[in-house]
């Protein structure tokens, strides 16, 4: 089993039976839970116990038969330069992927798989049906071997020097590693406002449900507390704020630790590899040429710790248009510099001048976020003096916010690279190589035209970058240059 012979059809590990079975149980629960719940609460139906036991056993046996059949009919092998996966017993399915179209081979492991010591192998292609190419139960050693074979098989096909490829077993270089202390810092410096809002929304729903069920009892126990709270709205607000702040900090911390436990970013040949996770372990390989864009972000708290949040944006595969993101929750500026040099070469951008969006961009933001809501609500509320007070505060706040956005919105361009900056309270940078561009869009409203301004959209295979409200002449120049560059560049975008 340790040395996979891919020429013959192979089944996954026998342990897969357990996984298929549990997945079956999960699926049936997902489908039938409302029914089961209804039955549990209507006790009289349980009068005839025997029937329910019988149905339970029947479902159990059916699931076991399903697992065995599914397991027996799940094969994969390589032949004629193609990876072939066969599955299904009622409806048979054969998936075929040419080896050279395999983009990356990743592994994942959830809790159950960790106990069984098996992994999920995901084969990512540049074509369709990518999500289907998953093998859920492979022995870890077997998976690693298969991963290597598929990868090297691809390389060998490209270059004929097979000997060389075998000789040099490339060593992995550790670029970034996060220990628990780092994770603690990162967890604390997350955007708590966002988590807080999610908690608030969830909390409100849960609260309503709990309230419905325990209404009578809750009144008895917390009567005094609730009374005090509702009589002093200021105390209530402060209490809620502190409560949600603590909860969201805790949630951010747990989330960060769970998702990024033992985070490692490694480099091997022409690919990065990311390993992370406490319960769900993931092992993702990103070929360098697939990375379209590097994003990094820092906020007021993160800045204090010198932490940046990193996101690698990868090419969207085929029709299955979902952007693949691989992120490092936190890194120091030295790591960031290292990665930037690695991806983009020498940094020519930082010294180049920054082109800021025109002041008119501020005006548009302020009109949309400040004056629009004001003008629309004014006819209904103009008699209330409180409205005028709030409106004034709102207009001032949106002006301040729009001003922050304007001050952070700029771009820097060099012969082969572009970097844009945006943000309001936190700041985010996006950088890409110009030959990764797929298409360019020039936009100009009649209001912009009057002031000789325009906006640009640069599309790449993982999304787009927007440069709003710059001089029309500059926009046109960049437009023409980007096209010239993309059309003359012989480099493939992926």
């Amino acid at each position, binding site marked *: 089993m340790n040395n996979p012979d891919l020429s013959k059809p192979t089944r996954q590990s026998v342990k897969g039976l357990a996984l298929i079975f549990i997945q079956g149980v999960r699926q049936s629960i997902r489908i039938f839970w409302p029914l089961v719940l209804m039955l549990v609460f209507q006790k009289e139906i349980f009068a005839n116990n025997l029937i329910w036991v019988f149905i339970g056993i029947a479902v159990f046996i059916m699931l076991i038969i399903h697992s065995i059949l599914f397991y027996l009919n799940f094969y994969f092998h390589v032949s004629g330069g193609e990876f072939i996966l066969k599955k299904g017993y009622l409806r048979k399915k054969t998936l075929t992927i040419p080896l050279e179209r395999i983009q990356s081979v990743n592994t994942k492991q959830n809790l159950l798989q960790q106990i069984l010591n098996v992994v999920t192998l995901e084969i990512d292609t540049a074509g369709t049906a990518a999500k289907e190419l998953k093998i859920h139960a492979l022995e870890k050693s077997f998976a690693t071997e298969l991963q290597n074979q598929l990868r090297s098989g691809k390389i060998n096909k490209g270059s004929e020097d097979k000997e060389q490829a075998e000789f040099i077993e490339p060593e992995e270089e550790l670029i970034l590693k996060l220990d628990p202390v780092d994770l603690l810092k990162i967890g604390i410096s997350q955007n708590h406002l966002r988590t807080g809002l999610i908690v608030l929304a969830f909390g409100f729903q849960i609260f309503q449900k709990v309230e419905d069920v325990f209404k009578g009892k809750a009144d008895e126990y917390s009567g005094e507390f609730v009374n005090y709270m509702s009589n002093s709205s200021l105390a209530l607000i402060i209490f809620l704020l502190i409560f949600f702040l603590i909860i969201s900090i805790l949630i951010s911390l747990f989330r960060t630790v769970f998702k990024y436990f033992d985070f490692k970013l490694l480099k091997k040949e022409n690919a990065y590899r990311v390993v992370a996770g406490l319960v769900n372990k993931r092992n993702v390989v990103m070929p360098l040429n697939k990375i379209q864009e590097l994003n990094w972000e820092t906020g007021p708290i993160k800045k204090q710790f010198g932490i940046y949040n990193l996101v690698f944006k990868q090419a969207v595969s085929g029709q299955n248009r979902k*952007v693949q993101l691989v992120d490092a929750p936190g890194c120091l500026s030295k790591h960031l510099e290292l990665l930037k040099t690695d991806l983009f070469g020498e940094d020519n951008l930082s010294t180049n*001048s920054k*082109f800021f969006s025109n002041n008119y961009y501020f005006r548009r933001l302020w009109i949309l976020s400040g004056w629009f809501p004001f003008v629309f609500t004014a006819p209904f509320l103009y008699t209330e003096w409180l409205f005028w007070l709030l409106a004034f505060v709102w207009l001032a706040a949106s002006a301040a916010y729009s001003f922050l956005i304007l001050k952070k919105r700029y771009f820097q361009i060099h012969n082969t690279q572009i970097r844009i900056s945006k943000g309001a309270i936190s700041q985010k940078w996006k950088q890409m190589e110009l030959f990764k561009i*797929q298409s360019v869009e020039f936009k100009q409203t*009649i209001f912009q035209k009057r002031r000789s301004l325009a906006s640009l959209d640069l*599309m790449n295979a993982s999304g787009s970058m927007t440069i709003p409200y710059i001089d029309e002449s*500059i926009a046109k*120049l960049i437009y*023409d240059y980007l096209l010239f560059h993309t*059309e003359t560049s012989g480099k493939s975008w992926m």
Partner: protein
Amino acid sequence: MENFSNSVLIPQNLPEIKEETFNKLDGKYLKILFIRIAIFMLILTGALTTFLILIEETLPILVLIIIISIPTLLITYSILITVLGFPRKGYLVREKDLSYQKGLITYKLITVPFNRIQHVEVNQGILAKIFKLSSVKIYTAGGNASDLSIPGLPAEIAQNLKSFLSEKISEHE
């Protein structure tokens, strides 16, 4: 400005895209757009009339005026936009890329280099079939935002454009 030109402009004269050089869409396409508005108008009037008949109490004149004037304004607006905006729609095929422009209130110009096109499609709707028009849709790897669709081409030109583009794509592979 000077600093900028120094850092970016390597070639002496970058080829510019000039608005005047664009090919206009076929005039018959305007008819299709009108028919679409007419269908929309019919559905809207039908819905409104049923609503007014079914409702039992008589509405105040002011409400009635609002109910009738909003769709009227909407349709007048869309007719105006269609008529005035039509001459702005156009496409341009250059040696190495394909551009499409449109928009009266927000002018948009999008260009896709040939070496980034994934595949090309020719589509023909029911209305377009009657007028013997087709549209050419160009897919890139950039997702929906960067896909480009040129409507209102005579069927023959659309086919020619498609085979021209397919040839260009195979050159780059």
